[in-house]
């Protein structure tokens, strides 16, 4: 456990050091790459709460990522085009303010997670995996046909949204925002795991029948975990959209859901920093292997296979030993 703490601290420090170094040697692309890793990590941290602690293998977290993305896209679209959004009961100008966008992203993705979770939790195992996929696919096809917001082409946002007191167009400042969000999510995750709710959720994953016999409802615990999880992934979606200044239906695609799962397993399921390590490794491999050969996917596949076959418990498991052992 002590060792895992060192590894976690080193990982966060490294994640902070790389873009700072890039700033010194003036390599803005590296900063953008690090920002991408941080945002993917944030999305995966969200998923890990459902998957790692709740045992809910959601193959549809792209739904929340996309909802976060489209929250940003729609609000900024109306603001930049000076086209008020008529909601029926009120008219809204749209906004370019990140905090407002985040709030909307979190609330809408939490709401979606509540509804999807409520229905999906009637099933379990592979059926749960597939029903969550189904809901994400519905959003995907809906976004494709939503011609008002670009349909298949998505929405481009000309200028990155604002954050009070910062210039978000400067890569390092936007990185700072994303990094802060990730640290906040990790802090929340750590508190959650140690809380009464975390204890009950952890047991609900392992022995739901035991949780019932002490008078608690495992399904409700899992639903709440799913909502928190979806909200965090939704926030990551909003940041991702701001990074690219672009949203499209591909944010809802099953590839993204799959990629998030893969990040977590690569790093370590149910480990606080598992998703972060997974995201960093994934983005780094993508970058370095991709620079070496166009067929880098073969190498990536071989590395992932190696992790499954020889490092059960992901890379964190390899570095720090199995979960829960000191």
């Amino acid at each position, binding site marked *: 456990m002590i060792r895992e703490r060192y590894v976690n601290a080193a990982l966060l420090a490294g994640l902070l050091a790389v873009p700072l170094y890039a700033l010194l040697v003036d390599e803005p692309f590296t900063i953008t790459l690090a920002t991408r890793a941080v945002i993917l990590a944030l999305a995966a941290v969200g998923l890990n709460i459902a998957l790692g602690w709740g045992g809910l293998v959601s193959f549809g977290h792209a739904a929340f990522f996309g909802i976060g993305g489209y929250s940003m896209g729609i609000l900024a679209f109306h603001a930049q085009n000076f086209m008020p959004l008529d909601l029926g009961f009120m008219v809204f100008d749209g906004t370019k303010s990140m905090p407002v966008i985040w709030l909307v992203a979190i609330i809408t993705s939490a709401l979606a997670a509540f509804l999807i979770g409520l229905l999906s939790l009637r099933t379990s195992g592979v059926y749960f995996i597939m029903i969550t996929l189904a809901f994400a696919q519905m959003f995907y096809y809906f976004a494709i046909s939503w011609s008002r917001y670009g349909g298949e082409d998505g929405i481009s946002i000309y200028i990155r949204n604002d954050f009070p007191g910062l210039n978000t167009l400067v890569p390092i400042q936007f990185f700072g925002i994303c990094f802060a969000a990730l640290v906040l999510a990790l802090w929340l995750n750590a*508190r959650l795991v140690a809380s009464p709710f975390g204890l*009950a959720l952890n047991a609900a994953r*392992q022995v739901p029948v035991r949780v019932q016999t002490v008078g608690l409802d495992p399904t409700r615990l899992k639903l709440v975990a799913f909502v928190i999880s979806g909200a965090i992934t939704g926030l990551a979606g909003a940041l991702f959209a701001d990074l690219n200044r672009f949203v499209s239906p591909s944010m809802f695609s099953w590839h993204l859901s799959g990629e998030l799962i893969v990040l977590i397993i690569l790093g370590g399921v149910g480990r606080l920093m598992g998703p972060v390590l997974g995201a960093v490794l994934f983005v780094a491999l993508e970058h370095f292997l991709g620079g070496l050969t166009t067929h880098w996917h073969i190498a990536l596949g071989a590395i992932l296979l190696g992790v499954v076959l020889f490092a059960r418990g992901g890379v964190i498991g390899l570095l720090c030993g199995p979960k829960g052992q000191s």
Partner: protein
Amino acid sequence: MTDTVLETRGITKSFGSLCASDGISIDLQAGEIHAVIGPNGAGKSTLIHQICGGLRPDAGQVLLQGQDVTALPTAARARKGLGRTFQISALAMEDSVLENVMLGALGASGRPWRFFVPVMGDRTLRDRATAALERVGLQDALHSRTAALSHGQRRQLEVAVALTLDPRAFVMDEPMAGLGAEGSKTLTGFLDGLRDQAPILLVEHDMDAVFALADRISVLVYGRIIATGTVDEIRRDPAVREAYLGDPA
């Protein structure tokens, strides 16, 4: 005048053509240990599931302290004071012994919706949990991983979790299963003292334990209670001897 804590009234449950519970009426009085015995496939597990809420009977009622709980799910029955132990230990194996018992204490407190305070810092829960562990003699294994416990210790932990709920009645599904002679003896001694806290409905295969503990015994054969009585009455009952102990009458 005795005090009925737990009762089933004519509960019936069929799976296809198999009638696993055929109008079972059984009751548990304050201060007693009531053992249910029967050959394999007699329907003991089905009975327990219906009492604890895992299965809904086709007909009949389950009453806890006079209140009809037939329609309530497992968790609600637990909150009303039903403490259960499992035949095959249902424990969070990845967690520590203390965490497993804390879960019981948390369930008893009814306050799992706290997201930011560390659960291990909650004195009330922790006192309750450690008290239960001390009662079953597991206080030295507090921080062991549950997966590392011996079989006997897991049985003790099962009982400790039930204890944290401070239940009105215990339902125990073969607590002696898999224990050696020594372990059975220890647990028998412990259960003997437990009946004063709350009565125990004990489903058990270990006849030594049953005869040592039970105030009353009910014999379940093919989904029906064929006899209920004291240890001596059951030993003498010709129907029981024929159906269960295998003696020709």
